[in-house]
Each structure stands twice: as structure tokens, then as C-alpha cells.
């Protein structure tokens, strides 16, 4: 990895009030290099990224672009000088077209600031062609799927022909195929001498695509070396420390499986169909098993489980809960008969971000915490404390607004909300997206525990690694149909990929 340093951070640090979130840190991005940046949530990755993009100014230290000092806290300047970023959460304007979003704030203009539409469109098309992407430039971003939106964000960055590209969790919510697609794009960029910082919780990706890796922990860099010199276990250990690491790995694939359950299934779906979404879907989930429903993004898994939960309509088919036919017309009804649903997008559908941990934890079970007209404060408090310890939610302060928690802890709160319901059937949609490896391990543990107490668990996941880790049985969904159901113990990832008919990852 020879080449000149495109972007250099020297002794960058960030202090908020009393807490130091980033200790003086050096970081270098060299042309034609993909640098992995890994670490648990709260390790300081995001802060470092924000400083490098100019979103925030460092408390100390400075940034050099091509060897020249760049003034801190100036997103525009960083952009102009070819440092672009793809943030984990969408930074698109939903109401505007793809074209407008790609060139937001820097459309080529004539006199009077009139935009040169034709030129703009040509540029965009050239861009699409160069990176082998196809997007409807006039489509509204709000109408695009998450993947597509990510692509728009990448294009947005590419449109600057950025020399340095910072990617924060670019593959969150992406399916295997899309990840592969993204990676090939990245390879292309690398070939063109672009320097890339690649932040991800999914180590396999890091090992697949990165040349060098920077491991962060508690706000400082603990390792910075070519990826070749490291292995997965070592990296995890660097990230989360010995104990957790062993736990996270140890429980991986070889984890105990319950025997294939028999008798009346907890959940039985027969021939569920909804025009344009899913067709003739039949599924069984037994008490004490974890069924993973995997597939490409867009295979309508979320729509399916929402329909089961009563958050989406379906045209035909039957649902039975322990042999009793049910049809939920609202989530309320589903919850009443003991079905829980951990939604995919915790920010949009899951949490009340400005409410406290306690308030979120009892949101689905409020009915149980009333004494006459009043809220039974003590009981709520007790439950909150119980769940906070059980799920090891950090910080263990039930008064804290959820917005202030890390992604992993937010996800745990969301999970806790539904565990408190002690549902007969718990549905989870992408339960560990954007969750760091430590929290992931804990969530897996919780799911297994729930399963072992006889809960039926239905997990929708695109992360095959995850599927292989927690599933007892795996159902593969393609274009709205369940094409195959497998016992995990007899399954290899490649089989799943083949089932999905996706390009080999």
C-alpha cells in the first residue's frame, strides 16, 4: 500500500463538557487504500468520522488534506477538497428527486444561478454508467428502498469525484447481494486511487474489503496495521476485551440447538397472500425454536411479518396461534393475544427517542402498570430496573432519554419492551442492524434464553452470519415466496446464497 497521504488527522481529540469521547488520535488515509475502522459503539468511531468530515470541530489537533492544513468544522470546505462521507443514517432530502439529491448544494449554474439541467443530467448519467448503477434520476427519494437510498448517497459522494470517502456503516440494512455489489464498487474506487475509510460492525466485510484496519476502543486507537497481520478473533479481542470476545465467539455456530419441535406449532401460516407483496406463504414456528426468515432485501419479508402482526393487511390465507385461527386487524389485537414485534427501523417505528428508557420499556405493556386510573410508578420502576440489568443496558439510568443511547443499547431497550410482554410469539425484524459486536452477542444470548423458556421466535435477517449463529431452522424467501426451509445444522452459507439465487458472496 504505497501512495501519498490524502487525508491526515493529527492528534485529533474531542471533549464534551467533562467527558472525553476522543483522546488525541492520529489517522491517515492513503491513496488507493481501504482502511477499516472498527470498534464497539462509544469507541469514538463516529466522533472521529464527524471531525474528519468537518461536521464537528475537534477540541484539539488538526487535519491535513494533501499535506495542507484544513480549517476544522467546515463540511463545505472538506467536500470541496474531496472529502465526502456516507453517514449511517440517511442524509437525503426525501421530498427531492434523486438528481437533486446527488448534486444538492452544488448544481452547475448559469448566470442568475439558473441550474444547467441538461448538463446536470448528463453528468449524473455518466456517473451512473461509470459505476454500473441504474437509478431513476427523477424518482423521489422517499419512494426508494433503503438500498437504493444508500446508492444515492454513494453517488452523492462520487459526484464530487471525492479523493477520500468516509463510509459509516454503509452496509447497514443491505442484503448480501447488495453488500457484494457495494464492495465491487469500492474495489473500483480503490483502483482509481481513492482513499476510503470503511466503518463497519460486520468483521467479515472488513476482512473482505479492507487493506489496513484501525481498531478503536474507549475513544483511542488500540491497533493500526495491515489487515493481513490480524485475524477475526484478535480484532474482536482488541475491540471488546477478552471475556466478551470469548462469549461472542464461543456461542457462535456451535451453540446448542433445541431438537426439532413437534406437535401443534405456536404459529402456523397457510397460503398467506397479498397482491404485489407476498404469495402463498406457509410457515410454522414452534414453541422453543428460533426460525430465521432470510432473503434479499425486497423479498417482502418485513411486509409478511407485519401482516402477521396486524400492522399490514393481507388478502387471503390463514394464521393460527396454537391451533386457534386468528386475524389481527391492529397491532393492539396481536399484542393482546401475546405476539410481540421488534420492528426493523428502531428510529422510525420502534422507539420514542425523547422518552426515557423506563417509558419505552413499558410502552407495549402499559395496561399492566395501572392502579385504577393511576400509573403504578413503583412497579414500572421495578420492571425498568429489572430489564436494565437483565439486558445490561448502558447507562443503567432509567430516566435517560433513549435518544442519548448507543445503537446497541437502543436496540436492547426495544427488545426489552417486547420481552416484558412475555409474548408467546416474538417476531424480530433485522434485530442487530447497526449494533456493535458486544451488544450483538448479548442480544443473541437473550433470544436463546427466550427460546429455551419456550418462546417461539421468528427472526427476519439478511445477515447470513447472524442467521447461521442463532437460527434453529431457516426459511429463505425470494420475491414474496418462501422457496426453502432448512435445518441450520445441515446448512452452509453457500446453500442459502444459492437459495436466494443471489451472486455468490
Amino acid at each position, binding site marked *: 500500500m504505497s501512495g501519498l497521504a490524502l487525508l491526515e488527522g493529527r492528534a485529533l481529540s474531542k471533549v464534551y463538557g467533562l467527558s472525553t469521547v476522543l483522546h488525541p488520535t492520529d489517522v491517515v488515509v492513503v491513496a488507493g487504500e481501504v482502511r477499516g475502522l472498527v470498534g464497539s459503539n462509544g469507541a469514538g468511531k463516529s466522533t472521529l468520522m464527524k471531525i474528519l*468530515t468537518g*461536521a464537528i470541530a475537534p477540541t484539539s489537533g488538526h487535519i491535513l488534506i494533501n499535506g495542507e492544513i484544513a480549517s476544522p468544522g467546515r*463540511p*463545505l470546505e472538506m*467536500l*470541496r477538497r474531496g472529502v465526502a*462521507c456516507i*453517514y449511517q443514517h440517511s*442524509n*437525503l*432530502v*426525501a*421530498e*427531492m*428527486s434523486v438528481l*437533486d439529491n446527488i448534486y*444538492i*448544494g*452544488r*448544481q452547475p*449554474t448559469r448566470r*442568475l*444561478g*439558473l*441550474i444547467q*439541467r441538461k448538463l446536470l443530467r448528463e453528468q449524473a448519467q455518466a456517473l451512473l454508467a461509470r459505476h454500473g448503477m441504474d437509478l431513476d434520476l427523477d424518482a*423521489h427519494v422517499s*419512494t426508494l428502498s433503503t438500498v437504493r437510498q444508500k446508492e444515492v448517497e454513494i453517488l452523492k459522494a462520487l459526484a464530487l469525484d471525492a479523493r477520500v470517502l468516509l463510509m459509516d456503516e454503509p452496509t447497514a440494512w443491505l442484503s448480501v447481494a447488495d453488500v457484494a455489489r457495494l464492495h465491487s464498487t469500492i474495489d473500483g474506487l480503490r483502483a482509481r486511487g481513492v482513499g476510503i475509510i470503511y466503518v463497519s460492525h460486520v468483521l467479515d466485510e472488513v476482512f473482505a474489503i479492507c487493506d489496513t484496519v484501525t481498531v478503536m476502543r474507549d475513544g483511542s486507537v488500540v491497533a493500526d496495521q495491515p489487515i493481513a497481520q490480524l485475524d477475526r478473533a484478535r480484532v474482536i479481542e482488541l475491540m471488546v476485551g477478552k471475556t466478551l470476545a470469548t462469549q461472542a465467539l464461543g456461542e457462535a455456530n456451535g451453540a446448542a440447538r433445541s431438537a426439532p419441535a413437534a406437535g401443534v406449532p405456536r404459529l402456523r401460516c397457510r397460503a398467506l397472500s397479498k397482491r404485489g407483496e407476498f404469495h402463498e406463504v406457509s410457515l410454522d414456528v414452534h414453541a422453543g425454536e428460533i426460525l430465521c426468515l432470510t432473503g434479499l432485501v425486497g423479498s417482502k419479508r418485513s411486509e409478511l411479518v407485519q401482516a402477521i402482526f396486524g*400492522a*399490514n*393487511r393481507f388478502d387471503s390465507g390463514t394464521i393460527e396461534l396454537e391451533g386457534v385461527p386468528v386475524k389481527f386487524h391492529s397491532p393492539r389485537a396481536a399484542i393482546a393475544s401475546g405476539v410481540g414485534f421488534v420492528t426493523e427501523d428502531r428510529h*422510525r*417505528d420502534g422507539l420514542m427517542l425523547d422518552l426515557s428508557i423506563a417509558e419505552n420499556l413499558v410502552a407495549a405493556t402499559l395496561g399492566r402498570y395501572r392502579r385504577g386510573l393511576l400509573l403504578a410508578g413503583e412497579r414500572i420502576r421495578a420492571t425498568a430496573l429489572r430489564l436494565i440489568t437483565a439486558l445490561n443496558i448502558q447507562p443503567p439510568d432509567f430516566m435517560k432519554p433513549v435518544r442519548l443511547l448507543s445503537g446497541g443499547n437502543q436496540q436492547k431497550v426495544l427488545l426489552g419492551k417486547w420481552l416484558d410482554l412475555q409474548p408467546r410469539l416474538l417476531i424480530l425484524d433485522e434485530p442487530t442492524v447497526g449494533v456493535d459486536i458486544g451488544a450483538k452477542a448479548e442480544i443473541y444470548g437473550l433470544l436463546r434464553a427466550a427460546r429455551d423458556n419456550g418462546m417461539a421466535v421468528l427472526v427476519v435477517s439478511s445477515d447470513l452470519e447472524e442467521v447461521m449463529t442463532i437460527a434453529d431452522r431457516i426459511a429463505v424467501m425470494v420475491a414474496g415466496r418462501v422457496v426453502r426451509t432448512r435445518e441450520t445444522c445441515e446448512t452452509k452459507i453457500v446453500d442459502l446464497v444459492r437459495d436466494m439465487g443471489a451472486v455468490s458472496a
Partner: protein
Amino acid sequence: MIRRHGISALPIFFLVTFAFFCAVVPRFATAGNLEALMAGYAFIAIVAMGESFAILLRGVDLSVGAVMALAGMVAFDASLILHLPGYLSVALALVVATFAGVLNGLLIVFLRLQPFIATLATLAAYRGIVFAISGRQLVPGLSTTALDDPWIIGLETYFDVGATLGVESIAVPAIPLSFLLMIVLLVLFEVLLRSTRFGRDFYATGGNPEAARLAGIDLRRTVLIGYALSGFCAGVAALLLVARLTTSTEALGNGMELTAIAAAVIGGVRLNGGMGSMWGPVVGTFLLGVVLMGLTLFGISQFVQQILTGAVLLAAIAHSRWLQSRRLLPSAPEGS
């Protein structure tokens, strides 16, 4: 980009209403009435356009009415007390109005006040200033003196299209200058919003401020300009109204804010920003006008009129919502 959000519903509704009145109300579809409609509502439409700028930025401008009164009174004093030449009075009034808008923007940008509160405060303050500088109070005689400066009164002129085109057979309504002015502003604003970078920045700021900021858009500048435009529009409207009335009163533009907001929202400008057009509010305004004129000519009692006006408002919004829901059927309430 607007069509996709079911705002095309409005023109349909407008035309239907209009057609209805033409059909059932005697003397509604006369040249004279159309003329009155144009003259009576063009200036309100201009205010509504201004208001839309504020709303597009996730804000609201409650002070438009007060700004109108301010601009009107400035022109009044400048002409009748200071005896300035008309073009100066007009310019002065516009400058004051625009500055009033800028002040709103400053309060919102630098004091980080909620637009509602900021403009509510200035609503009171500007009205107070109007009372303070009112020539009608300072110089008793003036309350019964009409403005006569051609530059101001000249704004209330009509162009007899019929005559110029030589069409005598059918009565063609004369087009009021105010209406033409409105059209000009409408075109300007549409171009500004659709095909200039500033316009795009504008939608970006309203749609997703964070993204706009990270894309290096100067939010403060956008907001300031937005409210400045709102003020400017109020100023133009005020002058047109003053020309129509040949005077200005302390109560000028009372309650205009609600009319403007209603017109904007009916016109499809989304209250939480980032979505809407300029022609929407204009059509919305004239819908209100058509209803008032229609019901009046229909001889509906004033009280029933109020009821029906409310009903029509509801119908208009329900209709567009209905068209929308047929496009994208939300099986669940969208998060607020």
C-alpha cells in the same frame, strides 16, 4: 416533483367549484365579476406566496398582516405627511416591509426562536409601530384625505384586453395590474424555486436541514432570504391594497395571516416544510375568493355563508387527501 403528491387535486377542485358557481349563480360568470375577483384577490395571493416561503422552511409567518399595515402606513405617511414623490414612497414601503421580514428571520436564526413565537412577537410589535406612526392619528385631517399620487394610485389600473384585441362581441374582463403583477411574481418565484440552485437549497433546508447543512448549504442565509421574501410580498400586497383603497388604515391586513396560511395549506404547501409550490397557494387564494363572491351573489345569508365557506375548505382538503390516499395507501398512521 409536486404532481406526485396529489396537489394536482387542487386545480380540479377549483375548476369544479368555479364551474358550479358559473352554472347556478346568476351574474357570476360575468366579465365584471371575474374582474372583481382578480382585483380583490390578487394581492391576497401575493401574501399567500410569501407565507409559503416561510412554511416551506418549516416555519410560519404570523406577522404578514402587521407588515402589510406597516408598509401601507409608511407609504401613507411618506406621501401625505412627508410629501415624497410616489416612487420614493413605494420604494420606502417595500424596503420597510422587506426589512420587517428580515428582522423576523434574524429572530429565528440568531435568537433561535420558534418561528411561531418570533413572528407572533413581531406581529404585535409591527402593529404597535403602525399605531405609533399612523398619520391618521398624528394629523387629524388625514383620516379623510385620499392618496392622489399617481405612482401609488396608478397601481390600481385595468387593462382593457377586449379593446386592445378588438374583441367587442363578447365582454372580456379588464385585467387589473395587480393580477398581472401577481402573475409576474408567481413566474419569478416558480423559476426561483424550481430551476435555481437557491431554490433547490430552499427545499433541501425545509426538507432535511441536517442534510442541507452537511451539503454546505448556508441555512441562515436561506432562512433570512425566505422571511425577507415573505415580508417583501406583504409589502407589495399592501401597496396594491392601498392603491385600491386610496388610503391606509391602522387595521390594514388584520387577520391576513390566517387567510394566507389557509391558502398555502390548501395549495398543498406541507406545514412541516420542504414540500409545496407557489401556484398552489395562488389557486388556494382564488378558491377562497370564488367561494365568497359566489355565495354572496347566490344571496346566501351571511351566517350560512360562513358555514358553507368552512365546509368548502374542508371539502377541498379532504378531496386532495383522498386523491393522495388512492396513490399510496398507508395501512398505518405515518409517524408524526
